[in-house]
């Protein structure tokens, strides 16, 4: 086949994908989402942590992956708040602090009684990756002497008795790469013994599945938009991930059809070449 024909085919595929993703966003179908065991594990960790306990949510991403990770942040913050747990937000990525502010702002509309400094705090970004986490494991106040607003950590009510990572009920890392969930597993769990769960972009999810093992290095995992929709289903919320899943599912169906067509076509071309070689 000529390269020009290939180019035309590619453009048809892009056009089709554009249409099948757009239509379900305008006209939602409402397909249900089944919950996978890894998402259930992450949910159970939050669900079974005691009221009043403090969790750390690390925002290790920036706006480029917000489509996948921000819905996870909404869902997990909402779940933790509904269980009356307190949240410390930190960020290993520079723009993570802003992502945390945006997520809290969104969820606070549902929890007007939650207040900054008492129920949640944003400590902001700190460079250093795993070294920073190791230092937090010894003394969080030396790593974050002030929060993102510049308030001294000594003046923040919910942090009066919180000295290091071991005081956290669990750690959630929403991670788009390095540093991120891997560093939290290595330092947070393997060094300080705190349960770690989290979410990643779908691209990097398979790389973290081996950490969900009998050692509980990782306590469940949310991989991509689908997992965020599953978490929303568990907390009975029709959130930003759920409404996008119709488009995601329809796009997947199209891609499966295209893969099948592509393979049939490739088989036919190979067969044609083999027959031609036999004829020679």
């Amino acid at each position, binding site marked *: 086949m000529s390269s020009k024909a290939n180019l035309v085919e590619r453009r048809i595929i892009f056009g089709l994908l554009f249409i099948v993703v757009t239509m379900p966003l305008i006209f939602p179908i409402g397909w249900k989402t089944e919950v996978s065991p890894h998402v259930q594990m992450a949910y159970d960790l939050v669900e079974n942590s005691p009221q009043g306990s403090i969790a750390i949510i690390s925002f290790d991403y920036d706006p480029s992956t917000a*489509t996948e990770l921000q819905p996870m942040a909404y869902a997990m913050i909402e779940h933790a708040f509904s269980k009356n747990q307190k949240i410390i937000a930190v960020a290993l990525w520079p723009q993570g602090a802003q992502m945390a502010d945006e997520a809290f702002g969104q969820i606070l509309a549902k929890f007007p009684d939650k207040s900054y400094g008492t129920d949640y705090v944003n400590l902001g970004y700190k460079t250093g990756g795993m070294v920073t986490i190791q230092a937090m494991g010894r003394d969080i106040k030396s790593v974050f002497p002030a929060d993102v607003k510049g308030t001294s950590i000594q003046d923040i009510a919910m942090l009066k008795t919180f000295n290091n990572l071991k005081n956290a009920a669990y750690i959630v890392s929403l991670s788009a790469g390095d540093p991120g969930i891997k560093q939290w597993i*290595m330092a947070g769990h*393997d060094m300080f013994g705190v349960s770690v769960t989290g979410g990643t972009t779908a691209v990097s999810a398979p*790389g973290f599945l081996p950490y969900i093992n009998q*050692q509980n290095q990782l306590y469940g995992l949310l*991989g991509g938009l689908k997992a965020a929709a599953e978490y929303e289903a568990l907390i009975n919320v029709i959130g930003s991930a759920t409404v996008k899943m119709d488009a995601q599912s329809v796009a997947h169906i199209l891609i499966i059809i295209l893969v099948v067509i592509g393979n049939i076509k490739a088989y036919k071309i190979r067969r044609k070449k083999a027959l031609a070689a036999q004829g020679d």
Partner: protein
Amino acid sequence: MVQFMQILGIWIGAFLTFSIFSFLYKDNPFYKLAEQVFVGLSAGYWLIYIIYYVIMPNLVSKLIEDFSANAILIIPALLGLMMLLRLIPKAQWVSRFPLAVVIGTSAGISLMRYMQSDLLNQVSATMINPLAAESLPDIIGSFLLIIGTICGIYFFYFSRKKEGIYALPSKAGIWFLMISFGASFGYTVMARVSLLIGRLEFILKDWLHLIN
């Protein structure tokens, strides 16, 4: 004024989105413009961000507040300045020293952690009794975990020619690897479609107001 700036920002966002998408048809000046704007903005943004959110709070502010207590910070500050000498060809050799410190400390810190998390804990996680699992799917899964790990590692064992019976685990290893690559590809497709959905949501919701 604020509302005008918001609307302007959305229109610029929509224009740049379509400019980038236009590459799918063919390379064109709009795509090149969007690409250059992205590169330039990113470089400028990160420069300012690093100055104000890394160097100022972690070095300058601490030295100004209490110099004697934070005097040790002068050492990393000097190492940082030495790194910048890479820009001067005659003094380029000086940058090797801070680079050596970075490589040495990174290797030292990572070695123990990776050994523990990626080797010892992973090996321990494979040393399981597969029959101890609660359900039949879990038992099958445990067997596949053990067989897959052994065969996958054996595939990368090159000290013996793989013939006859020695080739079987290697072939099984290839199958396990291929299946894992397929799963990774599936996840990658999902991620890319998610990004497309994110952009289209911006177009349909923030720009065109077609959806809520």
